[in-house]
């Protein structure tokens, strides 16, 4: 039984016919070759118990990150645990068979730097106590390890990401230029080692966590350390997306430094597991949209499965009563949006506009109202494109009845449909022709609506 069918049956049993019907109606992610944006997960080792590679693919996941640690392969000097790498290769092959790409994120940031051992009383190993092979971890030995790694994975991997959250973990940022320069010099050598073995390897650098990553990147760029970089990485949490202007500003600033840098994420989401299911789903929908609108091309969701981290909820969890695996509400926005947003943004803000807001004082134009501007746009063409309608702020409690104008002629025989990306509810909209387009009414809230023309 296919993953979607299985899910539909499960949800029908749970009394969620709307979601189940939606799963059956909405097509999976765009056809191969159409994709410009890649949705994925940063590590399958967390998730393989919960969802199969085929299931991931059906959900719209198009690539998989694999965390590789030097000390788990070379467990002691010149002692290599080939089983460790064999397992990763096996997972990669399974992903490839399901139509997904694979990438590698390196678990180390600068093994040879002894002075990085303590930052703000934090151990050098950061969150991975065994990530570094002790006194043998010189840079030269690490570069030799990288060459062996690339020889092993050549042809199977679409990118290598060098490190993770180096500003947060190691203080390598514009606030500590010396350390940032150190990382830049290290990266230059690491990139050279990778390219010696695979000249076409795509390399992602400058993995940052928070603050002003564009300031960090500008320094690395000006120092000449990013000549080999294909992308830069930024972890995106819900706190970065509460107001979309923050992430959009970062995206624009990085494109100003160089349009060559593709925007990459080592992980996004980190929605608190302390929140109600519907709230987690709302935040996930909002984060996905904000990151996509800001121009990110590679977006792995963190994590596919619920685990012990209350600050990052998953898409699935174990049912403690019957031992099965249950989807969480966040699966709905993840699937709906992974499929919808699997292309580069071609946003046309003036194609879809708010004509008026319905108030108890009568209808009012947006300019007459002092409210955070809702996000309303159409992306792409009428036939294959889609519209998005939502409040600008992720946690906004507002619910506004609005009359919208879509300056587009309806494709022949098509109706305009609004899909609530948070709960999957699907509504065929009543439309009228006027003002040079199609007029209709929807409720604007922080549960983003996906609009599209559908032929019934």
């Amino acid at each position, binding site marked *: 039984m296919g993953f979607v069918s299985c899910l539909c049956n499960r949800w029908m049993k749970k009394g969620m016919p709307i979601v189940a019907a939606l799963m059956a109606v909405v097509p999976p992610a765009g056809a191969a070759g159409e994709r410009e944006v890649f949705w994925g997960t940063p590590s399958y080792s967390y998730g393989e118990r919960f969802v199969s590679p085929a299931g991931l693919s059906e959900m719209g996941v198009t690539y998989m990150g694999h965390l590789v640690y030097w000390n788990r392969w070379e467990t002691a000097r010149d002692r290599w645990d080939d089983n460790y790498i064999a397992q990763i290769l096996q997972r990669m092959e399974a992903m490839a068979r399901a139509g997904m790409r694979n990438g590698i994120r390196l678990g180390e940031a600068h093994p040879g730097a002894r002075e990085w051992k303590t930052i703000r009383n934090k151990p050098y190993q950061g969150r991975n106590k065994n990530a570094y092979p002790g006194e043998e971890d010189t840079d030269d030995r690490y570069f030799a390890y990288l060459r062996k790694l690339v020889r092993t994975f050549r042809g199977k991997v679409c990118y290598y990401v060098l490190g993770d959250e180096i500003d947060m973990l190691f203080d390598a940022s514009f606030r500590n230029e010396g350390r940032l320069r150190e990382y830049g010099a290290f990266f230059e050598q690491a990139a050279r080692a990778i390219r010696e073995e695979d000249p076409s390897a795509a390399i992602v650098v400058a993995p940052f966590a*928070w*603050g*002003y990553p564009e300031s960090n990147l500008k320094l690395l760029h000006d120092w000449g350390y990013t000549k080999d970089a294909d992308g830069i990485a930024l972890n995106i949490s*819900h*706190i*970065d997306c*509460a*107001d979309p*202007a*923050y992430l959009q500003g970062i995206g624009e600033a990085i494109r100003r430094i160089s349009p060559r840098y593709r925007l990459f994420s080592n992980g996004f989401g980190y929605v*608190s597991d*302390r*929140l*109600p299911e*519907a*709230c987690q789903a*709302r*935040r996930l929908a909002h984060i996905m949209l904000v990151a996509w609108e800001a121009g990110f091309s590679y977006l792995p969701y963190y994590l596919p499965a619920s685990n012990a*981290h*209350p*600050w990052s909820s998953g898409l699935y969890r174990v049912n403690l009563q019957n031992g099965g695996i249950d989807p969480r509400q966040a699966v709905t926005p993840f699937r709906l949006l992974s499929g919808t947003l699997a292309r580069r943004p071609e946003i046309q803000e003036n194609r879809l506009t708010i004509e008026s807001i319905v*108030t*108890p*004082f009568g209808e*009012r134009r947006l300019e*007459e*109202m*002092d*409210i955070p501007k809702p996000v309303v746009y159409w992306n792409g063409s009428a036939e294959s494109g889609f519209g998005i309608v939502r409040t600008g*702020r992720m*946690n*906004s*409690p*507002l*619910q*506004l009845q609005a009359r919208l104008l879509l300056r587009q002629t309806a494709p022949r025989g098509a109706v305009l449909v609004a899909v609530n990306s948070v709960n999957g509810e699907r509504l065929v909209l009543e439309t009228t022709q006027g003002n040079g387009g199609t007029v209709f009414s929807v409720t604007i*809230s922080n549960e983003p609506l996906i609009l599209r023309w559908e032929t019934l």
Partner: protein
Amino acid sequence: MLRRILMLWCLWLTLAPASEAGSLVWRARDQVLPEQADSRFKVHFSPPSLAKQAKPVFLEGDALVIQTGDNESAWYHFAGGRLQGEQAVSVEMEVAASPCAGPAQISLSDGKRSVALYPWNGTHLRVKIDDGEAAYHPMPTWALQTYRIELQGKAVRIFVNGKLLQEGILKAPLEELNLFFGDRSQGGGRMEIQSIHIQGVSGNSAEPSTKVTQHSSKWIRARAETGELSETPLPAGTGALVLDVEYLAAAPRQAQLFLEFETPAGKKMVVVSTGLASVSDSSYCQEKLFVLVPADAQRVSLRTLAAPSHTPFRWRRLNVLPVKLVTGFPQGERLNYVTHQPAGQSFANPEGDPVLGICIPVSREFDAAQFPDVLTCCLYSGESEVCRQTVAARQIPYGFDGYAVFLFDTPVAVGTRAHFTVSSNLGKPPYYGWYTFYHSMSDDYPGGTFLRGGNPDSGKDMVFFVFASADR
């Protein structure tokens, strides 16, 4: 000027509730205990030492709380005097009673005959008239309900939230009116009383012995029913409105409040939304909303709109307090956490305005039913704490943008430089959850410094508003 005074006077006449002749009105939000407001109220404890040991009767927020443990009782007695034949009397109380081992009680009695209401374990109201069979009416008695008992001669009528619930007949009219409320049983429990309205007795026996707090007298009562219009001129220099709203709702953000401001540049509409209600249960909510007023606004019109829903919603109260903005920092980019160490902000107060309150945009990321925390704001002048105020976690939206509005009882003089901190009793994250608030990564606010754990932290500034009383 004269016109403005007349307008305010007219507004006060139409919107502010006046004392009614032949009746007694007591409201917890005036922050005066019943026995302080009227000497006919007496409070009793069993055992008598309970009063000193455990303080089972206290004011909390806008409610009088009677809270007892096992083998403890605490109740009020109001002696209303003799009744004449067919004299009509009524008692109306706004009450929420937590499910408890010992039932809460509201009763009228003359020692021989009685009418008693028992909010019964959260799920039913038990009604007993004289020594007849008790009737059980299913209703969420744990939520705030308005109970009303009407007596005229032998006739008894009982209303809940304005709807007739039960009628009955006493064997004989009550000869005198004694109102009892609280816990008179051996089991423990909790009862919250927001107001008492007794009609048919002489008016309040004396002025409250404790002065009603200054800010409460400046609230403007607005019409809360959906779609109804309230209009009021704004005092000069009004920079913001604090909205004090109460409602019964089954889903968050069910109600929107539309405020249309008249400014020299034309009308400008601001929309705010409630966000407190539980997702799963119908619940009583009290929430303070904070609305920035467009520049030079002279008048505001307000209408409410309940979002279309199959779930119940009912307004209970909507009060408006115009305030003057002293200072604030409105540009936040990112969220931060308030958990195990306080965060705060210093600020300049160039005109030396006494501070009436502080507002910080904040949301809650934990279940307040599981962790009933309070967020505490301490206001300092120099190194000295001059005032502190709390906001209960359940009054901060769960997962939505909301506010913690710390409204002090009276305006507090702080001089031209001051700072505040906000702190919670939650443990270190991620074990219990946290509050999130906004701050800027760049130091854009010129008048102050962000504080973390009491230490200055440059390069950040919290989003906050400090306000004073608006001139009236």
